[in-house]
């Protein structure tokens, strides 16, 4: 029987069975089991196949640290079986083995492919013959990777959340130290969040049978209001932000202080066969027995370098597991655990370690002996067993601390890297800080938690004094850490693969080869061999790799150092990182009406706009023949108010605005410091101190910032208000626009009463409006700007009044055609970052004689005195082909000298028209240019005046 008799504090409920499937076969576990413990209890020993060699891998750490038990659960790959709780009906599948987990054809890589699969083999072995690389690549890509993502999009999606959580203190790790830290901080009044990887807080307390204490501390923390996040690993540390992944939620925890109680990670030993199922970390074996009541083996051998392994042997014995022999690398030592083992008659080999593990599908025998021994050396012991519990020492889990700025140094005595420098705002407690025993861990946690709270102003003088005393005790206790024997990089010189990195199947020999090939620093070797880059993120392989590098390069471990710690510290699904998608879309107040009218809606900057209503040409013709109505609410709109408003605009634009009469409108092109066109729009003077500025739709935000920036610099007496979203706007244009408008307002809409470029205030259909008589589309037109809350009301009123007169809505596409007929530019389409007003054929807008210095003046003076190379002109095409925007202009059929920026077929004009940048020498009416477009050569005739109503008579009528 794999299940032991009920264990005190075990996590499973023996009364409640849970049934799930593994590779389609039914498995019955117990409530509280993990997938790993349930499968192990059912007799399974092979859980996965290794990444490269497809070797059998079994449970090793039982704590979510190693990559050995990765499985696919309900379609989600990369789930750690040893920590994932079983659920009724769950479908579990193996990964990385074909056709089955028990018989994997790719195992041939291990048996025969060794010489062909050194580090970076895909760049070495598969480069000749070169023509076969596509085939190799296909095979390699097929073989690489773990798990399969479901093919259907719907099966890949699940709800994920971001949750932003501010806290005074975040405690990472819910073991004895973490719980104590949280309690101490909360007792002082701090708002505390605790994040723990395990399904319940307790850490080693639970694993080592101190469940009562774990649950007592957990209850205390909960009572104090600590927010406990379980099955919630912290993924990284980013300048005050710690992402914590809890199933479907990614908590973005922003804490003023962080206590890292991340513990220490038990390390493996390197010897031939160190990856066989049955070779476990001693902590993993104890966890199986203690938490799940499972015997990890029937006959165990323990190999250790410190007391941790001895304590594991004692624990296994206590649970009825036969411990055949314990190999302790230390020559001396007489700890309590050692005394207990002696008392129980366990055979202990001092100064010995494991030299080899052997077995077919799982462990069958081990050889123990002095480290470094080869085949048949003196003092060797061969033992049959089905469990080898290994403890190669521990490594403090400093990765998150390192990410937050902590530094480490190598400690010769302890044989691992310890914290040497802490960043501001961070505290460490428990094993990660060197407090090894549970008692010391609790005490150090309390000191760290209270210390963090004190830094935030919680507590009083008395609590500070008490914690200071405790802190000294904690520091003193760290000096008395038990003795550890530092193991050699590889324990024996016997033949066989010794795995340094279980995730990526990197052997000790691979590290040797990487150094031979010149990758002789830990960072280079990491990139070449991919050691520490797998799912364990260095938990199992960082220290062994450093030891191997030190040995290979003849340097000290301190000089080799560690690799840079980077997030994520824990494997996490991409979907959890992505969170819920936010796609801020602006919609005008009339958007629903456009939808109802059948508009094709597209993105235009950050707005959703009606592109057309199904027939853009007919919509454009309606504007010429009767009237059209377009929603132009997306225009940027600013109120510029103050005694210096005119001066501000004079400084920002190349033309003048301070002399603009109230109630009049002027077009403006805004230039950068370099004299390049940034934006354009119209400006209406509302009164002596107020202007209403419109900008392009996409430039609204940038123009507001540009205004604000210069206003702050010039300290003019002006206030800006962005009313873009507060005002909707429509453009009513066409021969019958006046008639339609007049039917809804008392305003004198005659040509004399409301002239071209007049701006007036009036109510239209009961809605207060600012009316601008401008003509972007070339016909008599009125832009109505009004409170967006009345959007639908005014749209409906205009459509109702105009319907009998032939009014129809038109969208963005017909507007583009109409403005092209007038050769009105679109900034960003007909201009680019190098275009000046001179090049864009608008020299009249630059007032170099303006008394007021203005942005870009110097550059525009230079441009005015120099020779233009190209300029913007219109063109007609005779053959009916509409060139692509961006098509190349070839003056003599040789060498590009310009490009087409806009082109459309105009039903009004009966031909193709466009705008293009051409050499200045060709910028004259009737000149011929060649346009090269997707292999076709088109002869175009240059036009320098608007195609439609060139003298603006219609516009002004």
């Amino acid at each position, binding site marked *: 029987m794999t299940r032991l008799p009920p264990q005190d504090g075990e996590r499973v409920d023996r009364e409640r069975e849970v049934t799930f499937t593994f590779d389609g076969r039914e498995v019955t576990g117990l409530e509280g089991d993990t997938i790993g413990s349930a499968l192990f209890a059912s007799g399974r020993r092979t859980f996965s196949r290794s990444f490269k060699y497809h070797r059998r891998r079994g449970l090793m750490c039982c704590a979510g640290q190693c990559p050995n038990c990765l499985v696919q659960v309900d379609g989600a790959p990369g789930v750690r079986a040893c920590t994932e709780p079983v659920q009724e009906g769950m479908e579990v599948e193996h990964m990385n083995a074909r056709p089955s987990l028990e018989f994997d054809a790719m195992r041939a890589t291990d048996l025969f492919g060794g010489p062909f699969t050194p580090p970076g083999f895909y760049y070495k072995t598969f480069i000749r013959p070169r023509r076969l690389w596509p085939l190799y690549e296909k095979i390699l890509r097929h073989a690489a990777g773990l798990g399969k993502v479901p093919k259907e999009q719907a099966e890949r999606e699940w709800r994920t959340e971001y949750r932003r959580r501010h806290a005074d203190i975040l405690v990472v790790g819910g073991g004895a130290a973490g719980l104590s830290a949280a309690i101490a901080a909360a007792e002082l009044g701090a708002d505390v969040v605790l994040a723990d990887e395990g399904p319940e807080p307790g850490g080693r307390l639970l694993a080592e049978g101190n469940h009562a204490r774990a649950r007592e501390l957990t209850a205390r923390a909960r009572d104090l209001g600590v927010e406990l996040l379980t099955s919630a690993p912290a993924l990284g540390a980013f300048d005050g932000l710690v992402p914590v992944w809890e199933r479907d939620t990614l908590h973005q925890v*922003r804490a003023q202080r962080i206590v890292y109680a991340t513990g220490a990670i038990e390390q493996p030993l390197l010897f031939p066969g160190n990856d066989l199922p049955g070779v476990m970390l001693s902590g993993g074996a104890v966890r199986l027995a203690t938490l799940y009541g499972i015997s990890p083996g029937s006959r165990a051998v323990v190999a250790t370098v410190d007391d941790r392994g001895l304590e594991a042997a004692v624990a296994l014995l206590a649970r009825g597991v036969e411990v055949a022999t314990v190999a302790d690398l230390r020559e001396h030592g007489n700890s309590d655990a050692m005394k207990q083992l002696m008392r129980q008659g366990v055979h202990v080999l001092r100064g010995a370690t494991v030299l080899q593990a052997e077995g077919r599908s799982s462990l069958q025998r081990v050889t123990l002996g002095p480290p470094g021994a080869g085949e048949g050396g003196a003092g060797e012991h061969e033992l049959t067993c089905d469990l080898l519990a290994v403890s190669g020492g521990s490594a403090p889990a400093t990765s998150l601390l390192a990410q937050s700025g902590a530094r480490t140094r190598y400690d010769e005595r302890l044989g691992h890297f310890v914290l040497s420098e802490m960043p501001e705002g961070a505290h460490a407690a428990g094993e990660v800080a060197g407090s090894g025993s549970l008692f010391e861990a609790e005490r150090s946690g309390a000191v760290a938690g209270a210390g963090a709270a004190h830094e935030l102003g919680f507590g009083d003088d008395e609590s500070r004094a008490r914690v200071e005393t405790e802190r000294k005790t904690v520091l003193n206790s760290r000096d008395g850490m038990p003795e550890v024997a530092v193991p050699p990089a590889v324990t024996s010189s016997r033949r066989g693969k010794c795995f340094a990195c279980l995730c990526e199947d990197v052997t000790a020999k691979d590290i040797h080869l990487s150094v031979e090939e010149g990758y002789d620093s830990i960072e280079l070797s990491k990139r070449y061999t991919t050691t520490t880059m797998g799912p364990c993120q260095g938990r199992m392989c960082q220290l062994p790799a450093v030891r191997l590098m030190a040995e290979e390069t003849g340097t000290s471990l301190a000089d080799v150092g560690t690799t840079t710690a980077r997030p994520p510290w824990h494997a996490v699904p991409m979907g959890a990182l992505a969170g*819920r998608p*936010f796609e801020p879309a602006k*919609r005008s107040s009339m*958007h629903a009406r456009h939808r109802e009218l059948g508009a094709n809606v597209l993105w235009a900057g950050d707005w959703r706009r009606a592109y057309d209503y199904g027939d853009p040409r007919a919509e454009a013709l309606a504007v010429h023949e009767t009237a059209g109505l377009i929603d132009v609410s997306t225009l940027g709109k600013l109120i510029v108010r103050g005694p210096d408003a005119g001066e501000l605009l004079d400084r920002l634009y190349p033309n003048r605005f301070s002399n603009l009469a109230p109630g009049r409108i002027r077009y403006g092109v805004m230039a950068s410091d370099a004299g390049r066109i940034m934006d354009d729009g119209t400006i209406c003077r509302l009164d002596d101190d107020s202007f209403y500025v419109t900008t392009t739709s996409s430039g609204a935000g940038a123009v507001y910032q540009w205004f604000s920036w210069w206003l702050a610099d010039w300290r003019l007496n002006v*206030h800006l208000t962005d*009313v873009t*979203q*507060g005002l909707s706007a429509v453009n009513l244009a066409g021969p019958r626009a006046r008639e339609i408008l007049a039917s809804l307002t008392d305003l004198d809409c005659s040509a004399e009463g409301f002239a071209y470029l007049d701006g007036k205030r009036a109510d239209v259909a009961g809605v207060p*409006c600012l009316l601008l008589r401008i003509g972007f589309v070339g016909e008599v037109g009125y832009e109505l700007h009004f409170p967006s809350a009345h959007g639908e009301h005014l749209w409906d009123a205009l459509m109702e009044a105009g319907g009998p007169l032939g009014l129809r809505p038109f969208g963005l596409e017909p507007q583009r055609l109409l403005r092209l007929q007038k050769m009105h530019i679109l900034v960003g389409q007909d201009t680019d970052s190098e275009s000046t007003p001179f090049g864009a054929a608008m020299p009249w807008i630059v007032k170099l004689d303006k008394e007021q210095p203005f942005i870009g003046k110097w550059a525009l003076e230079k441009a005015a005195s120099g020779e233009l190379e190209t300029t913007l002109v219109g063109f007609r095409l005779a053959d009916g082909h509409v060139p692509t925007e961006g098509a190349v202009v070839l003056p003599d059929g040789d060498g590009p000298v310009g490009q087409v920026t806009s082109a459309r077929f105009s039903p009004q004009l009966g031909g193709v028209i466009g705008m293009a940048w051409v050499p200045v020498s060709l910028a004259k009416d009737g000149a011929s240019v060649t346009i090269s477009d997707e292999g076709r050569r088109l002869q175009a005739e240059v036009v320098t005046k608007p195609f439609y109503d060139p003298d603006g008579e219609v516009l002004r009528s």
Partner: protein
Amino acid sequence: MSYEFLTPAPTALARSPMERQALAAGARLEQRDGWNVAVAYDGEPPERGRCAATAGFADRSHLGKVELQGSHGLPLGQATRRDDAWWCPFTPEKALVLCEPADTATLLERLEGTFPTVVDLTSALAALTISGPLAREVFARFTAIDLRDSATPVEGFRPGSVGRTPGAILREAGESWLMLFGAALGSYMWTVVADAAESLGGGPVGVDALAVANA
């Protein structure tokens, strides 16, 4: 020329940018002070229950919102309740005053003579109140603004990013927060808030139930 074209007029019906979403969620609309207001959804008892047990959100875009520029002397980070209006400072020189829609005209008139620039932003900003014990959790799904008691006490005012757009949050009462954001983003923000609230068991509530719940 006056700024009247910025202010919704009682002579025409004013609509919230979230009206369509509210209707789709079952809202009953009533005209109040010239606005179509979502006054109720599935009835007052369940809506009050939502505000008491989880989180209810109500469209309050009809509130008057007046921006003033000039030295106002209001303490930053905190809204001040004065003359039946919330005075919410963004900077030492800029503040937003929130009032009942019927009071907007009077407020504008009063402020015009006091501050150099006064602009009616009623139509520029949409407003949602999220109320209930899980309201903070709803906010946590789309904003990083710290709404804990220590950071945002009652009457606290926090401009910042909401749903990846510029906005501001005013804590009107114990578990009731008023969120302001661009009107053109109304439809988008409704979906963001509704998605977050509904995942936590909350949902839309009418302004009538909200008023009772917050009374």
